[in-house]
């Protein structure tokens, strides 16, 4: 590393998204969210605030839920990134969380849904037997303006319970 490129000059970046390497050119100031949406065409990751509060942009970075609006694409190089597009099986079978959100009416407009799905996936994968209170606390990091959260919590709990059964 000898030179620092200016923030508005594109540099080559390799993002590993849902198991596939994506080679893009991104300005250092380009957020991971914009790189996923605009450069990789993965528009399932949504932007609700672009300042790190709503969680609509949540993706998994090496298994951890992160706000992709607060990361630069260049920072995500070398990490395993997972987005909502990678959740269902290749044959279209829904991930248990997707299925549960559907069955429990865990979405209305659906704008927050990808963020909640990725947040829940990250939480349940790292803490499969998370308690109810901790789960609510974890889910309180994202905003939904439609559902009042009740059905989202029920959906995630049902997946936790089914996995533990």
């Amino acid at each position, binding site marked *: 590393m000898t030179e620092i490129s200016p923030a*508005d000059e594109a540099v080559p970046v390799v993002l590993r998204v849902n198991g596939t390497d994506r080679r893009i050119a991104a*300005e250092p*100031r*380009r957020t991971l969210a914009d790189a996923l*949406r605009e450069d990789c065409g*993965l*528009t*399932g*990751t*949504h*932007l*609700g*605030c*672009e*300042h790190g*509060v*709503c969680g*609509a942009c949540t993706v998994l970075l090496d298994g951890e839920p992160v706000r992709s609006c607060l990361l630069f694409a260049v920072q995500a190089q070398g990490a395993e990134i997972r*987005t*909502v*597009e990678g*959740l*269902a099986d290749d044959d279209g079978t*829904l991930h248990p969380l*997707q299925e549960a*959100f*559907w*069955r429990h*009416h865990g*979405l*209305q*407009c*659906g*704008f*927050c*849904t*990808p963020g909640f*799905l990725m947040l829940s996936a990250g939480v349940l994968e790292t803490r499969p037997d998370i308690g109810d209170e901790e789960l*609510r*606390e974890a*889910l*309180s*990091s*994202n*905003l*939904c*303006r*439609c*559902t*009042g*959260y*009740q*059905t*989202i*919590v029920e959906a995630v709990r049902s997946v936790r319970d089914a996995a533990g059964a």
Partner: protein
Amino acid sequence: MGEPDGARGRSLIGESVLRLEDRPLLVGEGRFLADISFDGEVHLRVVRSDVAHGVLRGVDLDDARAGEGVVAAWSAEEVAHVPAIEFRMTGFDELRPYCQRILASEYVRYVGDPVAVVIAEDPYLAEDAAELAFVDIEPLDAVLEASSPESVAPLTLETSYGDTDAAFEAAHRVVELHAAVGRHSGVPLETRGLLAFPRPDGVLELHGIAKVPHYNCATIAAMLDLQPGQVVGREGHVGGGFGIRGELYPEDVLVTYAALRLQRPVKWVEDRREHLVAANHSREQSYRVRAAVDERGVVQALDAEFFHDQGGYVRTHGATVPNLSVALLPGPYLIPSYRVRGNIRLTNKTPAGTYRSPGRFESTFVRERLLDRVATELDLEPVEVRRRNLIPTEAMPFDRGVSTLGTPLVYDSGDYHRLLERLVDHIGYVALRESLAQRRRQGEMVGLGIGMFVEKSGLGPFDDVRVRRLDDGGVEVVTGAASVGQGMETAIAQICADVLGVDYTDVSVRHGQTDMIGRGMGAFASRVTVMTGVAVYMAASELAATGEPAEATFNTDHMTYPYGAHAAVVRVDAGTGGVTVERFVVAYDVGRAVNPMLVEGQIIGGVAQGIGGTLLELFSYDPDGQPLATSFMDYLMPTVAEQPHVEVLLSEDAPSPLNPLGLKGAGEGGTTACGAAIASAIDDAIGRPGAVTTLPATPELVRSLLRN
């Protein structure tokens, strides 16, 4: 989730079937506005006033135009030929001078007022260049209080019935109240946006249009001197409506104008800061009310005056919100005489429009606080005061003697007493009060509050629907209604499938495509399930009878009136003043629920928004009119941590006699009495009847109540 098949004798109407809408939204294939792009698109950025009130001396765009990738930059003179944005509803000539033009000239009237646009090849570059715009404003004093003599006072709405003065003269007691609701709004999670695509055939396609696509396309066409069919709406996925999204805003016209002029696709995606200062605010009203009460606590007359803070301009809703406040302030109670003055005032804040339960959240808060005060002053149980004042079911249909939204206010059906008793039974009112008293004796600050209300729904005047069978065995419904994420496709498909005896998953519902159907009213005022639902019922019945594609129109001059009661149990933290809602119950009569799961979803979501407006959300301003809530760090919406488990008592006692299915709309009743019930519960918790008279009841406010 059951076997949907009306033909097998079991009605699909009333079944909680799973939504048709969900799959693309679950797998990341939603098509929200920002997800759509066209080759060669350019990006628009709005330059906004950073001064609340001032003389606009000039806008210098030379540096912006020289910015990298900039295609164009315009200020007001470029669009001087475009007229101001007209009212869509409840227009008054007195308000017309205050309609907003698409770019400000001469004066700026709120922080966020659009003064110029910059269009560039890339959104980052557009934002960079917009920073280079030099806006010369000479500041004037900002007016921030609707009731102050400095605010512009274009119109006062007045109405009355009965002999109010005589009732006050004869009153056993006069009970008074000052109360106010703070400024907050819908704030959907998807911000606004628009993409205008000029097609080679001369038609402009608008993506990102919502709520009232037909109206917006026709109005934009007229404003830009185009043929009516030349602007076509393409509704995609919509990330929440709540009243504010889909109204015609300056940005919609600016984006369309830019696409027309540049003959390139033009895209605008609002950022969150913009949203919080530019999209409609709502709710801010302050009231003085007096009730003339007899010995039994029956309100014989209500005399009210309120100030409605409209902000810097009057937008598409005209006087809708204060008009609804005026009409629905008496709510579910008999109140034989009534007089009200609703003062519409302009201030230097973001202009206001409707937000879920407009005029009812505000007026219900005030009316229910007043009834609580009657209970206190006459030493009655709050529930008993309500029992004594409710309109009896024998009086239905009940003509209130006032009009709203151009139709006489006639409650079509209802058994208000029965609903109240259901709520009282469900919560175990007496035992619950006793157990809360017990907890208070042990040092906790806990309390119970209730609130009742009448909602309105199913605003006409018409809805058209076309239904036909497709070659693949499916059924297609085309409607001029719109979806804002509430699940309308599923509900409409259920009604259609029920009539035709097919599976609801075989029904596809096409909406929000203005070139597919001649006219359409869109989605607002909890109208879709009622209006479109009945129209599809009529068209599908005709198709069933004739086997031929069918069209039907449902016309109505009247609205239907669902009604409800809320109960809240809260706990107050004596140290911080923070309020925790421990329990929340909504009893709501919707006449007939097409899909109870969806109705409950609407109610629970509505409660979250009601709690937000009651405890957290506030567009506050500093003395110069600078908005202080411009991010989600300052504009606080409830997370799951603030949301109690909501118990829903869905009731179908009173089907509407105004339509063949008995439907009433269900979109708003989760929100309506949240402020009323929670405020009452806080009073009870801190042992200070009538203490909470302003919303939101922030920790700061509650702490100040505790100190006094």
